[in-house]
C-alpha cells in the first residue's frame, strides 16, 4: 500500500526513550494514568522503565507486571512498526500531539500511519448503525469542517464514523482515524480502502502495537484519543448505551467542547444526542455552530454549479433530508421515469447518493449554500 508516510522521525529523541515508551504501553494492567504519573515523577520513559520494580511498590499484580517487563522486547516492536511503515511517536517526542499530551491519561507511545499535526481538529462520532438522516448530517458537517480547514477526527467504524471520514476526504480535507487495534489491522474489513485514503490525507493512529486485534475492550479506551486529539466532539446519532457517550465523558474530563446534532424524536438513534442537549451540549445545525464556538474561521463553500430546472428542483426537495423515491415522485409531480433519470444524473455528478430502501440523499457537495 502506498501510504504517504513520512520517513520515520529519528534523532529528535533517543531510541532508548522510544523503546521504553513502547515498552510501557505493553505492560498488562498498568493504565495510562499511572504511567503518566510515573513519567512526571521520573522525567523520562527510560527512567521509568529502569526503575519499574521500585515504582510498582507492593501492587497486587506486581509479579505479573514484572514478568512482562522482563520478557518485553520493545526494541523489536519499534522495528516491526517501522518496517510496516508506521511512525512510533513517544510521549517525550516533540511530534507528540500537544492536545493529547495534556489529557490525564495519554498513551506513552503512538503508532501512526500518515502524519499528525497541531492543526485545529473536531471529532465527529456516532452510531455504527446510522439512519439516512444521521449519515447525511455527519457527511455535511464533516465536509464543511474539512472545507474550513479543520481536521475531522473519528474512529473509522461503520456508520457515522465512516461517513465523517469519507465526506472530509471528498472535500479534499484532512481526517484522522483512531483505531482500537493495531494500525496494520484494519477493522472493519470493508473500510480497507477508506483507511488507506485516511492515512494518505491525514493519519491512522493507535496506541496499540502492530498486530493487536480489535478486542471489544479496546474501543472505549480508543475513544479518549478521539476526543483528546480534537478541540470538540460532535455527537451525531446514538442510542442510550452508545459508545459516543463514552467519548463525551472523556471529552468533558479533558475539557473539550461537546456538540450534539438533534434528531427525530421518534428515532432511538436520537437518544444520545438529545440526552446531551438536555445536559447542556451545544446544538449543531450547521458548521458555523461548531467553528464559532471554537474560535475558528469558516471557509466559503463552493457553490453548486447547477442550472435551474428539474435537477435543481430535485436537489431542493432533498434539502430537508433524505427522501424515498416515491416521496420525490409525489412531491415533485414529475413522472417516475424522469425522477429515476434525474437521480442517476445527479449521482454521476456526485451531488446525491442512493441508500438501501430507495432512499436518496444529498451529498455535502450537492447542498446549495
Amino acid at each position: 500500500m502506498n501510504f504517504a508516510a513520512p520517513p520515520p522521525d529519528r534523532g529528535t529523541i533517543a531510541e532508548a526513550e522510544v523503546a521504553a515508551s513502547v515498552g510501557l504501553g505493553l505492560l498488562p494492567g498498568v493504565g495510562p494514568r499511572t504511567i503518566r504519573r510515573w513519567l512526571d515523577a521520573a522525567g523520562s520513559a527510560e527512567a521509568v522503565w529502569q526503575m519499574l520494580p521500585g515504582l510498582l511498590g507492593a501492587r497486587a499484580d506486581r509479579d505479573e507486571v514484572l514478568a512482562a517487563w522482563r520478557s518485553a522486547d520493545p526494541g523489536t516492536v519499534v522495528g516491526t512498526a517501522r518496517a510496516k511503515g508506521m511512525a512510533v511517536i513517544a510521549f517525550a517526542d516533540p511530534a507528540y500531539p500537544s492536545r493529547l499530551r495534556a489529557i490525564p491519561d495519554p498513551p506513552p507511545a503512538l503508532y501512526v500511519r500518515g502524519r499528525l499535526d497541531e492543526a485545529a481538529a473536531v471529532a465527529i462520532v456516532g452510531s455504527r448503525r446510522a439512519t439516512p438522516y444521521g449519515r447525511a448530517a455527519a457527511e455535511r458537517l464533516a465536509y464543511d469542517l474539512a472545507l474550513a480547514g479543520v481536521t475531522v477526527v473519528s474512529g473509522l467504524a461503520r456508520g457515522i464514523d465512516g461517513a465523517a471520514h469519507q465526506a472530509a476526504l471528498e472535500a479534499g480535507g484532512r481526517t484522522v482515524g483512531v483505531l482500537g487495534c493495531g494500525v496494520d489491522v484494519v477493522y472493519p474489513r470493508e473500510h480497507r480502502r477508506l483507511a488507506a485514503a485516511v492515512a494518505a490525507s491525514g493519519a491512522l493512529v493507535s496506541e496499540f502495537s502492530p498486530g493487536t486485534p480489535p478486542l471489544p475492550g479496546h474501543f472505549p479506551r480508543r475513544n479518549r484519543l478521539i476526543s483528546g486529539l480534537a478541540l470538540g466532539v460532535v455527537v451525531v446519532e446514538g442510542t442510550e448505551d452508545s459508545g459516543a457517550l463514552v467519548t463525551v465523558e472523556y471529552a468533558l474530563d479533558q475539557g473539550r467542547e461537546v456538540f450534539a446534532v438533534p434528531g427525530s424524536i421518534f428515532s432511538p438513534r436520537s437518544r444520545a444526542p438529545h440526552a446531551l442537549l438536555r445536559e447542556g451540549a451545544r446544538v449543531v445545525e450547521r458548521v458555523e455552530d461548531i467553528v464559532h464556538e471554537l474560535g475558528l474561521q469558516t471557509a466559503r463553500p463552493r457553490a453548486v454549479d447547477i442550472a435551474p430546472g428539474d435537477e435543481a428542483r430535485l436537489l431542493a426537495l432533498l434539502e430537508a433530508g433524505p427522501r424515498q423515491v416515491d416521496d420525490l415522485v409525489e412531491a415533485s409531480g414529475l413522472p417516475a421515469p424522469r425522477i429515476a433519470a434525474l437521480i442517476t444524473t445527479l449521482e454521476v455528478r456526485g451531488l446525491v447518493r442512493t441508500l438501501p430502501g430507495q432512499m436518496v440523499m444529498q451529498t455535502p457537495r450537492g447542498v446549495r449554500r
Partner: protein
Amino acid sequence: MLASILSATLVGLEALPVSVEVDIGPGLPSFAIVGLPDAAVQEARERVRAAIRNSDFAMPPRRTVVNLAPGDRRKEGPAFDLPIALAVLVATGQLRPDVVRGYLALGELALDGSLRPTPGTIAVAQAAGAIGARGLMVPEPNAREAAVVEEVPVYGCTTLRAAVEHLAGSRPLAPLRAAAGQPPPDPAAPEDLVEVRGQAAARRALEIAAAGGLNLLLVGPPGVGKTMLARRLPTILPPLQRAEALEVTTIYSVAGLLPAYSGLLWRRPFRAPHHTATASALIGGGAGSRPGEVTLAHHGVLFLDELPEFRHDALEALRQPLEDGVVSVARAAGTVRHPARFALIGAMNPCPCGFRGDPRRECTCTPAQVQRYLARLSGPLLDRIDLHVEVPRPAAIEVLTGPGGEPSQAVRARVVAARARAAVREGRALARAPRGPARWGLVEPEALAFLRAASDRLGLGARAMERTLRVARVIADLDAAEAVGSAHVAEALQYRVLDRARAPALDTLC
C-alpha cells in the same frame, strides 16, 4: 376375432397415434395387454372388464389379448380404457367393425362405464386432426378443449354406452364445434395494477420488463408487495395470440391441470413454485413426461420468491430455458424438449434479516453478512436478470392511503406499442445487418459518454454496462425514441441496483 381402433399416447407435449388391437380367441379366460404398457395401462384390464359388464354389454370369458402398436414406445396413462373397451366390443361382435374405422378414442373408464376427464386430450385432438381422423371420441369434460382443434369432429361421451350408441348410429352425438377461436372480449383478470399504491420504480420496472420481455428481480423487506407486483405482470403483457393460447392449453392439459369443461386458456400463466422445489420440479421430467414449472410458465411468468433460498442445482437448471426458451428433459426413452419461454421474476429480501433500508425496523446484519447473502445468487443466473429494483417499505404513511396507481390496461397499451416499435426496428436492423450490435438500434454518442461516466462513478463492469444499454433500449422504445438517449441510460441505471451493491465502493452501504 380381431378388432382394432386408433388412440394416442403422449410423448412430451405431442400425441403419437397408437393402434389398439384386440384379439379374442380360444383358451383359458385371460386378459393381457402387450406393447410396452405402464402400470396405469395394465390396470385398464380391470376397469374395462367392469365397465363393459356394468354398461350391459357382455364380457365373454375368453382369452383376450390387447396389443398397443407401435410396440417400441412406452404407453402411459389410463387414456386407453375407452379404445380397449370399444375394440373388445368389436372383437366380440357387439359393435360392427366398420363403424369404428378411422375413429380415435381416448378416455379413462370408471367401473360403472362412465368416462372420466383425461389429461392431454387437446394434444390427441391435434394428432387426430393431423392424420385426418374421421372422428374423435373423448370424455365429455374434455370435449371443449379438444374441439379447439377444428380439423377433426369431436364427440364428447359421458359413458361407454353413449360412445357405442353413437358409433352404432342408434343415438348419434352432434360433433362439438369450438365456440370461437377468438379470446373472450374482456378476460377480466382478478388482479390489476391499479391496486398497487406507490412503488413507482417497481411499477416502472414491471412495465419495462413487459415491454422488453426482460427478467426482473425485486428486492425488498417482507410484506411490501413484491408478490403482489409480480402477480400483475401477466396483466400488462400483450394478450395471448391464438397459437400461444393453444400451446398453453396443451401444456396444462398434458399436465392434468386443465379444469374440466375448459376451452382455450387465454390468460397468461403465473407460476410461483416454492423455494424448496427440486430441479426436476422446475424443469420437468421424472416419471412420465410431466412438464415442469418452467414449461407451465410458458408464455407467462415464473415467479421465484425468496430467490436465494432456492437450491443451487435448481437455479442452475434454469439457465438453459432462460437462454433458449426450451428445456430438454432427458428420460430413459430419449430426450423430450418442452417449450419454456417465460418472464422470470425473482424476489428476495435485501439482507438475511430482511430489514436493510427499512425505515421502521432496524437491520441486524453486518455488511459481510449482506454481501454473503447477495453472493448466493450465482453470477450466471444474475447475468440473465436484466432489471433489479428495490421495493422499499414506504416511510410515509400517505403512500398507503393515497390513490391507487395506473390501471393495467393503460400500461399494457404502452407495452404493446413499444413491442410493435421494437419489432419494426429489429426487422429493419436485421435486414441491414443480420448480426452484431445493430439490433440495439441507434445510440446517441452523448448516451454512451454518459454511460461511461456513470460506470466510472458507480463502479460498473462491462457486463453491467451492456445490460444497462439493453434496458435503456426498451425504455427508448417505450418513449417512442428511435435512438437511445442519455435520459434512457440514466433511467436504466436506477434498475440495476445489485451492480452497485457489489461494486467495491469506497463507502459501505450500511
